[in-house]
Each structure stands twice: as structure tokens, then as C-alpha cells.
């Protein structure tokens, strides 16, 4: 809008045009134009356009925040999209398949048949790269097992021997000059030299992926005559010193655990393997073994029967392995069709011929009747398509898994969120399928048929683990005893699952806001009423701007003072702080009744600043008294140690209930008095002098106070006898950075806002209303209570709402003083974790476009929405109030 350095500025022509035109005559030599100059019009038009477009743009930009936040969070809720479907047939039929594998980048795949044939092929085109034969010996393979990442395999033979194999994809990054010449293109930007696959990657580099599989010599692990029927395998340790644990079930249902420890001698390169065989307790009845699974730490072994019985061995103590549990995971007559661990081997997925698909957790709980106190518990079921699920491939990254059901449909689901990530009807018969593998990055799934046909789907699911339910509803995570709301976004281990429930954070925000409003609203509103109605104009001219200035105090300062100064003080003087909630009102009331003893003329003369000074003094006195009485109070109420009392170590429930009941009882007593004993005061109409009446009032108040205390004490003991206890609910374990401190600090932050807006609203009540009320003989107090407050109520309400909006979104105070523990409890002495604090702490570390990143954006959106709603309500109420106030 500054782009009109108009020559028009020098003339303002229309303004002086009329007189010049009127003068006419010889003075006006050149004829005055009556039209506006073109430059003026041009400037006007430009300004018009610029301001309109610019203004709308600014407003749109500001509102665009909302749109941006929404677009950033929407991918969280998207399900998968297929990005490619490939079908091809391998040159040689797979027959009885032992294994299928796919590399991380979906370039190479291999298929291993029972006769040892190994075909390595390009995953996207199906072009065979190498084909070889592993020498598996003469005995037929009767069982196979592999680690979850399919890099280590074990094959069990009919002669009771086991052979280990190592299958690895190797990836190297090459610069263009290192690229071999004479490559054959494979399509999709890939090329091969007949052995490895080379793919162009960003940054002008190439990635070389090769595959090799090495078979070790046979190891005899059991009787030579017993074929191994089923196996489970886990490996740990480094290459030089590896420990492999193998569980076998042989034809006679004998279960054994075999540990082989290999050590490579660093000097000679010689490799020595020791085999340790542990015979496990026998199974209770002969079974038709379906599968065996070992956990990654090899501390639990599961043996599944086709009928759906699962036998669990606890192997924590290898000297004394126990058969800890026999559980049924299928209804009678249903047969087990799939059985495996998900990543982390703490969730067991089972599928049955009745179409059931369910997830079991191994949990430890006191009420379990098993030998080791653990039990398999069904955590959730999945809605399968009605037909039984037969193949099952877990993901290497998260809790996803792929399945093939009876109609040949290939599905990928997430085990925690139950989100269906992909659904591909292959159109192939179930009977033909031999193997299924999920790409390590959960972006592809490959299935192999007996005749060598391969289906390979690529898909893209940005955030498999989040749904509306995982974000806002109870989720049962593995390792937890029951479903709950959990926020835990990161941990040290790899197979860790991020738990991203926004509920504890929203709760935290509201908890902080609630307690701070509890502290701020009375002070701000009462203070505003007093300032607007009762305080001397001069004093008001000081207090109001001071309060306004406090509104712009940086919250980081408040957070710092709260956490490093206030929190230790409150911790040391916690009893005195509690006492202050009782002592302060008592002191003020006492001050009021003593003031009434003053002769009226004196009271009238002193009612300005001296009275306010007296009030200040009584607050200070009360503070001093509570500090002095704090230890005594703690001794009396909490056995001298409040924190021990909070932990439930000492003392009963009654003292704290008494404190809680005090305000309620005070209210009850004053209502009772109004109801039934009102006559007590009004009877001597005009008979008594001012002083005796005031003394009477004082006595009455003391009586009332005593009654309140008695009532509260009685009720508290009654409730305590009935078993009520605030511990574990409103109060509990004390931590230094707690909600009480946050309440104080945040209250301090919102008091000026509520105070200023409320005071403005009260001030906007037209003066003639007050004049009329006072003129009718009402006192100032009656006018304030019955005339001013009701008129300004909506304005005061909107002040509270705006304060609330600020408290919900306040960041630095909760980051610094709240302890940041994401828990759901109302304990005022415990910490909290607010939405805003979580964003501030975790977003800088979150990977762009990752799940945490988007969830934090969603947290921002929720915060935005909450404050926007609160503020809108406040704004609408305020506008209505304004309209009404001007009409009055």
C-alpha cells in the first residue's frame, strides 16, 4: 500500500477546487478540471486492490494454520494404498518350500525348496538371477525354523540331525564410477550383473544388493532314529560367540531344548561348537503337534496342538524347566491353522479353522492360578473374512502381520491398532500357497505357490499403528496387565512399540487448567469486583495498570520461579500452605467482624486506602501465622510428617477429609442459619446500639465457626469410619514438581487476564444503574451483589473462559514445573504432562513426517480446537454482553 508515492499528495485537489472554481474570473487562468486527477484515481484503485487482496490473504493465511494442521494429521488415519502388483512364475516349481525371503529394499528375493534348490530372483520382475542347490544330505527335511528376521535358519532332518544356515542380504552403496559395466537392465531402474542387483538411489549413488546362503555341517541333537517333527529357533550373541537355542518336538512328542554355543578362536579361526541338550518335562497327553515357538530371549516355549491346546514351558531356570500352563486358544472342534509370535515375541497370534484370529499376551498377574503366576490371556480378536487364516508372516518393524485366508485373499493388519493395512484378493487357490513373507519395511508382501507362481504386492501405509481408537481410546499394549491410556513415545529398545494415546495429555492439560482456575478465579473475580465497586479511584489507577502489565509477563519467568523457587518452598512448608487455605479466609473474616466494631463515622472516614492497607496487613498476618503454626498443624493432623501421611504410612483419613469438608460445612451452616435462625438477628429492630450489635455479630460468627468445625470434624470421622479417604484420589504421593505448584504459577499467569477482562465488564455496567440502586437505599454491597454483578455476569463469565483458554494452552510453566509424567490421576501432589509441554519437548526430536511427528501435530490441532472453542464461546458471550450493556 506504500506503492503510491503520489504526486497527488501535493495537491489534495478536490478540497480546494470548489473555491477556485467559484472565484472564476481572471484569477483562474487555466480552467480548473472538475474531474479527479488520474493519479488520484489510480492510487485509490491500487490501494483498494492491495488492501482487499492483502487483507484477505492475511486473514486466509492466519486461518490457514488450521487447514495446514489438518492436512498434516490426515495421513495418520489413512489406510494402505497398493502401489504395485506383480505376478510371475519362477522357472522351476517350488514344490515343498522351506523358505522365502525378501530384502529390505524389495529388490532381491529367494526361494528354497525342500530338495535344496535355491532360486534367487529380482523381486519386481521375477527374473531369475542365480539358481543353485544346497547340499542338504540324504535325509529328508522334516522341520524348519528361522529367526524372525529370516537371516538364520535351522533345518531338522528325519535322522534327528539339525543343520543351521545363514541367509543374508548384503547392501553396499557405490558411487557411479565404481559401478561395473555391462549391466543388464531389469526394469524399475534396477540392473544386474547376473548376481547382484544395482539400483540408482538419490544423491547420485547406487545400491548393490547381493544374497548369500551358507549351510553349516549337521549337528546331531537327538536320537538318530527319531525324526524331528517341529522346531523353534532363536539366536543371540555376536558372530564370534553365538548362542543358539533350538526347541524340538520329535515323533514321540518328546520336547527338548538344545543350546549350542559356538566360539571362534581368534588366533586359529577354528570354530568350536558345544551342544547342550535339555529334556523338558513330558507333555500330559499325546498330541498332534502343530508348531513350536520360542521367545526371543528363549525363556518361554510354546508347543501347540492342532486341536488348539497350547502347552507353555517356563524356561527361566534352565536347570528346572517346568510345564507351566496348558491353555486352550480355540473353541472345541475348531482346529488351529496358524500360530506365531509377533515382533518382540510377547504377542502370540493364533488362527483357527472357525475363522477366528486372535492375539494373546503372556501376562503375570496375582490372580493367575498357574505355577509361575503367568498366563496366556486373549487380548484382542480380529475380524477375519469368515474363512480360516492359514499363512502368517510377522513384520520386522512393528506389530504388523500378513495372512492368507481360505479364499486366497492376502491381508496385512496391524496387531495393536487392528488397522487393515492392505487387502489383496490374489484369486489363487489356498491349497497352492507354500510361503508368505512381509517386506522388512512393511511395504510389500510376497507369496509363493507350489508351482512356482509368485504374487508380489507393494503397498504404502504411512502410519499403520495409529487409528482413532489408539489415539483416543483404551488400548491393551503388550506387557500391560489391562487396557489403558498410555503415552510413551520412545524407549531404548528396537522392538519397542510407541504408545501414543492423547488422552493422558489432554487430561494433563485440563488438570493443570482446573487446579489453576480453582486458585485464580476467586482471586481474580473477587479482586475485580472489589476494584471496580469499592476501591478508591486513585488506588484503582495504580492497581489496574499493574495487573495489565503482569498479563504480559513472559511465562518462562513464571515457570522458572515456580520450579526452582516455589516448588522447594512449597515442599518444605507444605503443611503451612495447606493451613493457609483455611487460615487466610478465617483471618479476613475476623478482620471484617473486628472492623464492624469501629464506630460508623470512623469506619466511613477510613474506608478508602487505610481499609485496604488493613486488609493487606491481615493477609500478611495470616501468612505469618500459618507459617508459624505449620509444624504444629502438621504434628496435629498428619503425625508430623505430611509426606508419610500421603503415602499412607501414618495417620487416618479423617484430618484431610475435615479440611475438605470445611468449606462445605461453612456453607451449610450459613444456609441453616439463614433458614432457621434468621429471626435471631432481626428481632431487636432498632433497639440495640451499633456496638453491641456488632459484638453480637462477632459472637454469632464465632459460634458459626465453631459449629462449622464441629460439623466438619464429625462428618470427617463418620466418612473415615465408612472408609472414605482422599488419599489415592485427590491427594497421594508427593513429588516436588506437582500440580499444586503448577496451579499457583499458572494461576498467577491467568489472574491478570481474568481480572482485567472482568473488571472491564464490571466497569461497563452503566453508572445510572448503580445510581438508581443506591438511590433506593441499597448499600454499596447490595448494589454490587444484586445490580452490578448480574448485569455483568456474562462478561465475567467470558473473562473466566478466556483465562481457561490461556491456562489450557500455556506451555512453559507446565514444561518446567509439572514434572511431565503422563498419568491419569487427580492427585494434586503429583505431576502431569500437558499437550503443550509434550509438543514443546518432543517435536524438535521427532522425525519429519513420522508417526510421532504427525501425532504431535494432531496434539497441536486438538489444542487449537479446544482453545478455539473455549474462546469462541467466551467471545460470543462477551459480544452479547456488550450489546446488552449498551442497551441498558
Amino acid at each position: 500500500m506504500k506503492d503510491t508515492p503520489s504526486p497527488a499528495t501535493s495537491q489534495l485537489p478536490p478540497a480546494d477546487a470548489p473555491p477556485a472554481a467559484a472565484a472564476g474570473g481572471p484569477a483562474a487562468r487555466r480552467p480548473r478540471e472538475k474531474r479527479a486527477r488520474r493519479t488520484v484515481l489510480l492510487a485509490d484503485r491500487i490501494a483498494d486492490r492491495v488492501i482487499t487482496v492483502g487483507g484477505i490473504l492475511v486473514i486466509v493465511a492466519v486461518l490457514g494454520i488450521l487447514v495446514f494442521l489438518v492436512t498434516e494429521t490426515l495421513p495418520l488415519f489413512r489406510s494402505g494404498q497398493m502401489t504395485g502388483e506383480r505376478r510371475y512364475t519362477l522357472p522351476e516349481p517350488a514344490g515343498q518350500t522351506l523358505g522365502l525371503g525378501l530384502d529390505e529394499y524389495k529388490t532381491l528375493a529367494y526361494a528354497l525348496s525342500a530338495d535344496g534348490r535355491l532360486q534367487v530372483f529380482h523381486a519386481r520382475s521375477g527374473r531369475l538371477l542365480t539358481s543353485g542347490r544346497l547340499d542338504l544330505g540324504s535325509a529328508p527335511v522334516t522341520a524348519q525354523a528361522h529367526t524372525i528376521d529370516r537371516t538364520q535358519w535351522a533345518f531338522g532332518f528325519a535322522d534327528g540331525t539339525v543343520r543351521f544356515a545363514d541367509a543374508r542380504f548384503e547392501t553396499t552403496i557405490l558411487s557411479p564410477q565404481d559401478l561395473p559395466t555391462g549391466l543388464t537392465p531389469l526394469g524399475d531402474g534396477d540392473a544386474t550383473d547376473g548376481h547382484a542387483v544395482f539400483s540408482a538411489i538419490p544423491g547420485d549413488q547406487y545400491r548393490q544388493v547381493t544374497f548369500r546362503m551358507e549351510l553349516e555341517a549337521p549337528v546331531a541333537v537327538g536320537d538318530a532314529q527319531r525324526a524331528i517333527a517341529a522346531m523353534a529357533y532363536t539366536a543371540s550373541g555376536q558372530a564370534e560367540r553365538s548362542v543358539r537355542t533350538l526347541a524340538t518336538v520329535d515323533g514321540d512328542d518328546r520336547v527338548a531344548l538344545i543350546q549350542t554355543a559356538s566360539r571362534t578362536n581368534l588366533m586359529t579361526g577354528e570354530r568350536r561348537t558345544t551342544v547342550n541338550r535339555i529334556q523338558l518335562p513330558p507333555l500330559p497327553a499325546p498330541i498332534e503337534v502343530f508348531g513350536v515357538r520360542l521367545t526371543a530371549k528363549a525363556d518361554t516355549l510354546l508347543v501347540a496342538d492342532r486341536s488348539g491346546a497350547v502347552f507353555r514351558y517356563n524356561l527361566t531356570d534352565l536347570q528346572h524347566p517346568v510345564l507351566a500352563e496348558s491353555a486352550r486358544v480355540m473353541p472345541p472342534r475348531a482346529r488351529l491353522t496358524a500360530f506365531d509370535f509377533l515382533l518382540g515375541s510377547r504377542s502370540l497370534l493364533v488362527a483357527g479353522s472357525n475363522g477366528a484370529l486372535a492375539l494373546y499376551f503372556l501376562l503375570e498377574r496375582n490372580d493367575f492360578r498357574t505355577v509361575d503366576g503367568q498366563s496366556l490371556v486373549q487380548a484382542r480378536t480380529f475380524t477375519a473374512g469368515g474363512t480360516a487364516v492359514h499363512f502368517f508372516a510377522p513384520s520386522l518393524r512393528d506389530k504388523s502381520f500378513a495372512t492368507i485366508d481360505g479364499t486366497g485373499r492376502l491381508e496385512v493388519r496391524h496387531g495393536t491398532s487392528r488397522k487393515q493395512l492392505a487387502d489383496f484378493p490374489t484369486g489363487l487357490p489356498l491349497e497352492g500357497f507354500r510361503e508368505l513373507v512381509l517386506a522388512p519395511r512393511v511395504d510389500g508382501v510376497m507369496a509363493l505357490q507350489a508351482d512356482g507362481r509368485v504374487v508380489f504386492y507393494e503397498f504404502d501405509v504411512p502410519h499403520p499403528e495409529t487409528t482413532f481408537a489408539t489415539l483416543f481410546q483404551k488400548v491393551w499394549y503388550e506387557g500391560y496387565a489391562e487396557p489403558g491410556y498410555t503415552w510413551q513415545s520412545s524407549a531404548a529398545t528396537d522392538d519397542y512399540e510407541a504408545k501414543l494415546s492423547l488422552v493422558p495429555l489432554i487430561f494433563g492439560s485440563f488438570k493443570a487448567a482446573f487446579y489453576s482456575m480453582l486458585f485464580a478465579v476467586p482471586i481474580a473475580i473477587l479482586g475485580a469486583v472489589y476494584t471496580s465497586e469499592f476501591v478508591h479511584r486513585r488506588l484503582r489507577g495504580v492497581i489496574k495498570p499493574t495487573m495489565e502489565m503482569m498479563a504480559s509477563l513472559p511465562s518462562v519467568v513464571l515457570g522458572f520461579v515456580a520450579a526452582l523457587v516455589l516448588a522447594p518452598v512449597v515442599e518444605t512448608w507444605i503443611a503451612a500452605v495447606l493451613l493457609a487455605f483455611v487460615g487466610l479466609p478465617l483471618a479476613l473474616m475476623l478482620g471484617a467482624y473486628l472492623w464492624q466494631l469501629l464506630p460508623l463515622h470512623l469506619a466511613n472516614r477510613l474506608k478508602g486506602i487505610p481499609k485496604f492497607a488493613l486488609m493487606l496487613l491481615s493477609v500478611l498476618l495470616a501468612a505469618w501465622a500459618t507459617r508459624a503454626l505449620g509444624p504444629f498443624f502438621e504434628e496435629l493432623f498428619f503425625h508430623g510428617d505430611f509426606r508419610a501421611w500421603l503415602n499412607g504410612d501414618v495417620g487416618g483419613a479423617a484430618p484431610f477429609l475435615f479440611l475438605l469438608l470445611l468449606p462445605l460445612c461453612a456453607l451449610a451452616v450459613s444456609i441453616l442459619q439463614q433458614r432457621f435462625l434468621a429471626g435471631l438477628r432481626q428481632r431487636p429492630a432498632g433497639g440495640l446500639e451499633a456496638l453491641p450489635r456488632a459484638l453480637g455479630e462477632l459472637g454469632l460468627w464465632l459460634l458459626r465457626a465453631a459449629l462449622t468445625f464441629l460439623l466438619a470434624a464429625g462428618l470427617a470421622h463418620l466418612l473415615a469410619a465408612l472408609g472414605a479417604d482422599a488419599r489415592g484420589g485427590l491427594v497421594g504421593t508427593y513429588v516436588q514438581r506437582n500440580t499444586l505448584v503448577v496451579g499457583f504459577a499458572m494461576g498467577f499467569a491467568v489472574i491478570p487476564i481474568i481480572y482485567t477482562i472482568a473488571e472491564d465488564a464490571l466497569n461497563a455496567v452503566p453508572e445510572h444503574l448503580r445510581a438508581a440502586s443506591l438511590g433506593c437505599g441499597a448499600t454499596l454491597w447490595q448494589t454490587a451483589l444484586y445490580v452490578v454483578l448480574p448485569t455483568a455476569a456474562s462478561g465475567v463469565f467470558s473473562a473466566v473462559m478466556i483465562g481457561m483458554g490461556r491456562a489450557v494452552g500455556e506451555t512453559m510453566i507446565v514444561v518446567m514445573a509439572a514434572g511431565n509424567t503422563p498419568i491419569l490421576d487427580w492427585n494434586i501432589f503429583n505431576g502431569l504432562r500437558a499437550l503443550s509441554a509434550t509438543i514443546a519437548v518432543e517435536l524438535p526430536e521427532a522425525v519429519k513426517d513420522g508417526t510421532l511427528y504427525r501425532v504431535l501435530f494432531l496434539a497441536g490441532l486438538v489444542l487449537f480446537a479446544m482453545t478455539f472453542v473455549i474462546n469462541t464461546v467466551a467471545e460470543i458471550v462477551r459480544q452479547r454482553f456488550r450489546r446488552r450493556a449498551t442497551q441498558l
Partner: protein
Amino acid sequence: MTGGRRAVNLEARGEPFLWGMGGALSLGVLMILGFVLLIVWNGLITFYPKPLRVVHLKDGTRLAGEPTRAETYKPPAQRLESLSPEERDRMRERGGLAHRTLYRIGNYDFYNEDFRWVSDYQVERWEAPREMVFVERVEWGPFVGVVQALTLGDTTLTGEAALGERLHAAQAQAARRRARIRRIERGEIGAINHRMEKSRLTLRGVALKAGEDSAAYRQALARGEAQAAELDAAYARLAAEAAALKSEDARYTITLADINGREKVQALSEIVRIYPANALNLFQRMGVYASRWWEFLSAEPREANTEGGVLPAIFGTFVMTLLMALAVAPFGVMAALYLREYARQGRLVSAVRICVNNLAGVPSIVYGVFGLGFFAYIVGAGIDRIFYPERLPNPTFGTGGLLWASLTLALLTVPVVIVATEEALAAVPQSLREGSLACGASKWQTIKYIVLPKALPGIMTGLILAMARGAGEVAPLMLVGVVKLAPELPIDAYFPFLHLERSFMHLGFHIFDVGFQSRNSEAGKPMVFVTTLLLITLVVLLNATAIFIRNRLKRKYYVGHF
């Protein structure tokens, strides 16, 4: 009413309620007063040199330190059992409470702690020897002890001679040497590094544009190599000079000993300040006080921000706030002009107005989220791809920085400016506009010559209040570019002088960082108080300026126009 004939209706006076309300107000006032006093007092006394004490404990050990604060606390039960019976009785008399003092014992390189609590019942006696010195060092925090000897080149002084004028002169000289070494290492060698990096980037840019086989690349390569040789020579020269200075510097040392006689030889140039705390007169104390304030305001931070100055933070706050004001003023005023003067007033506009009002109440962290996601990751990454491909994958604008922080805060404060400007525009009487239009002025002329000048005080107030809010915000900055220690200031001598993409330091974040993230929050606490005092002063000054300008412009325009 004095007659007492008429009923004195005490209930109608509502005195208890009045006291309740007055009490609430006085509590609020007291809280504010207490808060301000706390900040101001702690901020002001931090730099005042305190006397040093040597404390003899009952267990026979000694410690020396600066008493920082004292408090009453409740000793844990197992501690009570270790006391003698009469002491236990005395403590029981005091309600189980004990008194203790926090000593800043310094000598972190010896003790691995800076502070130590000493309870009164542990103390045998204490004294304040005059020879104790408080030494502020560049590294390891302060040293508390005595001066054993002073080595100046070939001469060694001991005893009284080691203190006094000679020491001060030598120390001043050493400080100059340190400054010179620093200038060489940071300034001149930094300039060489800068040119090397620039030449590398130019080469990479040519490679990206023309390819590595092109003639242009070979040419650039040759040029780059020539320049590199030249720079290497300059570097070697400077490095030699610095090494010479350093070896000269190593000849000037001071030997210090702690209270238990452990000696420490310290290069003089590593000493920031040394003073005999118990032998200072008021004038000397004020000198130390003033020099500490000057260091605070004019130096860079040391020791993980817990010592030294906050100049980069002051600078960052200032530049960011200024940029924010530059961004927010035109846009805010434009939007308000549109809403008030151009848009047809109706339901839509009043809905928009409510929205804009509400946006002023949206939590600042939400703006930070937007700033990071939109400005840094989308706009910034786009700028990087187009203008700085040679620096990728290191982001230039694609991460938090000064520009994005300013724009984020501008977005945060634009509703404040819009609302204030709108109110100011609405307060300009309609008759003025009508008068101007009736005289034949165009709409823009009316706005430019009549409405805007009249509304200017209000607009300025809104703008300054927005700046006050922006200067104190920390939460969004944590996401869009503020760092605990910025290696370079956003303004320097290299083209284009103002580096909008750099991360920066901020007073508010400095408070958060020193108070919460540093090794020892106790050591940082005094510093935090001073920084807080500075930040609050800044915010209050801005607010006061807003009020001042409002009043002044109001007067001026009332007189000047009508």
C-alpha cells in the same frame, strides 16, 4: 446513621464479603509485589561480591566458600540419630527443624561439586580471613583459596607482593593476550574457514549445474585449488602467530591453593577476575559489581551458559523482535484496514472478526508447530532445493532459524495487531471520513490523510504490545530455531551480513536452558535471576513505551488536527 435510632443493618453492609473480596485483591497485589521483589532483589544482588568464609566443622574438616543462601529445613530421621543428645533436644525444641547455609565452595576441578550445604549443627566456628581470594576462571568455575605465588615470565613473586597492583597489571595484560588469541582463532582463522567453505560450495554448485566433466568445472577446480593454497598459507601464518602468543602466555601463571593446601597452577589469561573478597572496601566492591554487570551485558556465555554474559541472547532477542515487528506491522494494518474500511460489514465479516479475536488466544505452541511444519520443513526445504542445492543434505533454510522464528512470532502476534488496529480505526469518528469524502477526497486519500493518522496511536500501541508479547514468548521458538548456544551471531561481516537462516539465542530460552538443562542448576540460578530481570525489564520497557507513545500521540493528534 450515627444516631443509632435507625436499625444498623450490618448484614446489608456485607462487611465479611467486602473483606473477602478485598483480601483476594490484596493477595493478588501481594503476590505481584512479592514476585517483582524476588526477581529484582535476586537479580540485583547476584553480582555483588560477597565475603568469603572459612568454616571449621565439628568433624575436623574445613571448607571455604561464599555463603549464597540459607534456609530452614527438616533433617531426615537417620541424620537426627547421629547427633549428640543435647543437639537433638535443641532441634526438637525448634519443631524438628534445622537451619543450614549453602556455600559456594567452587574448585570444581578438585571437589566435583560447586555447592555444599552446611547445617548449623555441624559448624564448630567460622572466620573470614583477609587473604582469601575469589577467582573467576574461564573454565571450571570459580576458585576459592589463597594466592601462593605469581610467576611473571622469569620472576616469581610470593606473599603480599603477589597480590595488589602487580597482579592486576599482569592480569590485564594477560586478558589482552587472551583477546588477541581469540581474535586470531575465531575472527581471522574463522574468516579463512569461511572463504574455504565458500570456495568448496562454489565448486559443488558448479559440479551440480554443469557436471564434473565440464570445462567450467575444471576451471572452477583450478581456481579453487589456487585459492586453497593461498588460504592454507595464510592459515599457517596465523596459526604460528597464535602458537607464539600461547607459548608466551604460558609463562605468566598464578599458583593458587585451596583451603586444604592443594595447589593449582593457573595461567593468568584463564582468569577473568580475581579479588580478595574480605579485604575490599565499598568502592572496590562496587567496582567488581559494575565490572560483572558489564561482562554480563557485553560478553559471550561461558561454562555451559552459567557464567559470562548474554550478549548473543540479547542480540538474538532484539533482532528477532525487530524482524517480527517489520513483518507484522504492514500485514496487520492491511488486514485491519480491509476488515474495517473495505469489507462489507455483515455476518461473514463479524464471524471473521471473532475468529481473528480468537486466534489471539490460540496457544503459542500451536504457532510453533505450524512454523516448524510449514515454514521450516515446507517453505524452507523448497528454498534450499532451489537456491542452495550445493549445501544439501545440510539444510540452510530447511530448519529452524531467525527468519522462521520471526515469521512464526509475526503470525502469533498479527491477531493482536489486527484487533488493536481495528479498534483504533473504529474509534475514528465516521463524521471525519464523511467530511473528507464530501470534500472530494478519494477513499484512499481519506484513509491516508485522515483515518490513519488519527488511528496511529492505537496502532502503535497494538504493535508495541505485540512486540512485548513476542519478546517474551519462548515455547514456539523452541521449535523454530532458538538454540542454547549459537556458534555465530545472525549478523556478521560476511555477505549478506544479516543471516536469516541461522539459529540464534534468546533471553527467554536462556532462562529455560540455564535453569533446567545445565549441569548444575544451582550454579546457574543467580544467572537466571539476572537474565530474568533483564527480560522483564525489556518487556516492561516495551509496555511502558506503548503507554507513553499512546498518550503522546493522542495529545499531538488532538491538537494537530481538530
